[in-house]
């Protein structure tokens, strides 16, 4: 296998285990649209002073649904960072649950409002995000995969990171460790060409991160992250490799960050007007909607229904969560250590 492959849906893989059906494609589209509305709502809630901070997945939706679709949430592990908004929804997080995080409500399922939204651990699938500190999740993912390998489990660990995260020492150490031990882990980079304001050209001296995989002894694949089919295929191949005990894969999905870095940012300070304008063509919702229509999998009116349903769902969730209570002060003293005596008090 060559070290770097370029994949797009125009070059269908022969041996792909399972092609996405038209039905599933529409289903993924539905999740993407829901994610988009919820994401927009969260941004609005920030502007209303209700959500302290948000990072948006707008532009990353196709990549995230397609990646999750190729995995098995009943046993796989997902180490996310703050931008896997759509992935969380694809993994079954309800809009209400998402909003509880943003509004710091008592029943925030990830961290009970101790942490930023999308941080903590999911109550139903093995999805977690311990901290805001970039790239710390990569060695942790290698550890999760190591445990599976020792236990003889065929679970796969998927760890997400950004182009900026690729510069951290932890990213290198994790890939090196995983390469030595041929661990069942997928290093999944959502490359949106920016780390806050720092463009890829100041982040790395190369055009494609996927080329780094060769330095660790496993394959690297670059894929168009607006292309659901291509991302799904690349991930599926990596999952098969991992489950078969053949080791890690690095996937680099090229995406756009349609909005500023977070609600605290203003990207017009550092992105040219053209750079911002060109992103429209790479909006994954637009790309997939056009594909579905071209393939006669979606009519204009079905599309409208999907949008209307998503909007309604988001409205209901907002009203529900807005009325919910905040955590009490006392709960902030819970769960520091187990307090059983081993491990000690506070």
């Amino acid at each position, binding site marked *: 296998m060559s070290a770097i492959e370029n994949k797009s849906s125009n070059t269908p893989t022969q041996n792909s285990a399972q092609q996405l059906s038209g039905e599933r494609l529409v289903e993924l589209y539905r999740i993407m649209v829901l994610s988009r509305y919820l994401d927009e709502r969260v941004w609005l809630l920030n502007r209303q002073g209700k959500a*302290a*901070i948000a990072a948006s997945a707008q532009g990353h939706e196709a990549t995230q649904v397609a990646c999750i679709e190729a995995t098995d949430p009943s046993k796989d592990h997902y180490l996310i960072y703050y931008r896997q908004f759509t992935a969380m929804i694809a993994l079954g997080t309800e809009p209400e649950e998402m909003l509880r995080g943003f509004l*710091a409500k008592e029943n925030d399922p990830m*961290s009970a*409002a*101790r*942490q*930023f939204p999308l*941080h903590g651990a999911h109550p139903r699938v093995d999805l977690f995000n311990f*901290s*805001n*500190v*970039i*790239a710390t999740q990569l060695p942790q993912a290698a550890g999760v995969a190591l445990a599976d390998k020792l236990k003889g489990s065929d679970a796969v660990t998927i760890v997400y990171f950004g182009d*900026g*995260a690729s*510069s*951290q*020492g*932890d990213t290198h150490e994790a890939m090196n460790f995983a390469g030595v031990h041929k661990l069942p882990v997928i290093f999944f980079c959502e490359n949106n060409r920016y*780390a*806050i*304001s*720092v463009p890829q050209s*100041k*982040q*790395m001296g190369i055009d494609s991160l996927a080329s780094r995989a060769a330095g660790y002894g496993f394959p690297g694949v670059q894929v168009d992250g607006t292309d659901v089919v291509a991302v799904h295929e690349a991930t599926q191949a990596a999952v098969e490799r991992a489950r078969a005990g053949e080791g890690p894969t690095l996937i680099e999905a090229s995406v756009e960050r349609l909005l500023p870095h977070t609600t*605290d940012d203003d990207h017009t*300070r*550092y992105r040219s007007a053209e750079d911002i304008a060109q992103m429209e063509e790479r909006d994954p919702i637009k790309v997939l909607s056009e594909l579905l229509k071209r393939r006669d999998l979606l009519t204009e009116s079905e599309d409208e229904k999907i949008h209307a349903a998503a909007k309604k769902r988001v409205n209901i969730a907002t009203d529900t969560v807005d009325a919910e209570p*905040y*955590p*009490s*002060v006392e*709960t*902030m*003293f819970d769960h*520091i250590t187990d307090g059983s005596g081993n491990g000690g008090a*506070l």
Partner: protein
Amino acid sequence: MPEQTVIEAVRATMQAEMQRDDSVILLGEDVGSRGGVFLASDGLIDEFGEDRVIDTPLAESSICGVAIGAAVNGLRPIAEIQFADFVWPAINQLVGEASKVRYGTNGVKTAPMTVRVPYGGGVRGGLYHSQSIEVLFAHTPGLSVVAPATPYDAKGLLASAIRSEDPVIVLEHKRTYRLVKGDVPDEDYTIPIGKAEIKRPGTDLSIFTYGLMLHYALQAAEMASAQGVDVEVVDLRTLRPLDEDAIAESASRTGKALIVQEDTPAVSISSEVAAIIGERCFFDLDGPITRLGPPEIPPMPFSPIQEAAFMPSPEKILAAIIKLAEL
């Protein structure tokens, strides 16, 4: 004398020092066209160019390691760590390496570098945008650590740091950036590293504090004065080396010491201040050496209600003053 916020003073000082000395460069994440996430370097790339205002890759260990190398080879780098919570990857380069460049080479090499670290909470930062990280730096021989709380001190101490022949960690409390305003003279001045300042003289009780808590302590002192307790407020300003003489003098004079900090108390700056007083002022004290800090939980919850419960406040400080004064 123009009034500035803390962040304005930081920006103006970096600008002035870069104008003054060509060897001063700035490096960090987003310090270029973004102007830093707190806008501390807003506009500097336009004035000094990409060579002297360097947007680095996202990798703190190399930011600090590169700064060491550049400092050793004749530059005076200012490294910006975006948030204090992200300084941990650089500990090896700062605590392990920078602190010992001069000592380990018997003075042949030096590392004149400044590391600016926005720290502290009360900004809805949750567990990873609120941390106080002073302990390890303040413990380490070979490092100096300053923590200015006012625009005036921010300018004077940052200028001292940049001109220092050795590494200096500058802790800027991010909540003070826009909250705290004050007069800052246009002319050049420095404040010596290692000197505390009495920000409010008093006779009944001494508060020792720094950073955002200075302002809360001053508010509490005002409230206490209405209740007849005359509180002295000592701004530590430098955390390494601590101004032991100033601490001992004030505590011995008032006879009562209250140490206030935002960081969790166990093994911290407040421990050291208490230890200094316990050793040097023992025979002059007429009350237990009292510390006020947040609870011993990971700092600090994102929930605004819990964040407020975590942070010391003027009211909590006042309560501690009254309790200690009544002993």
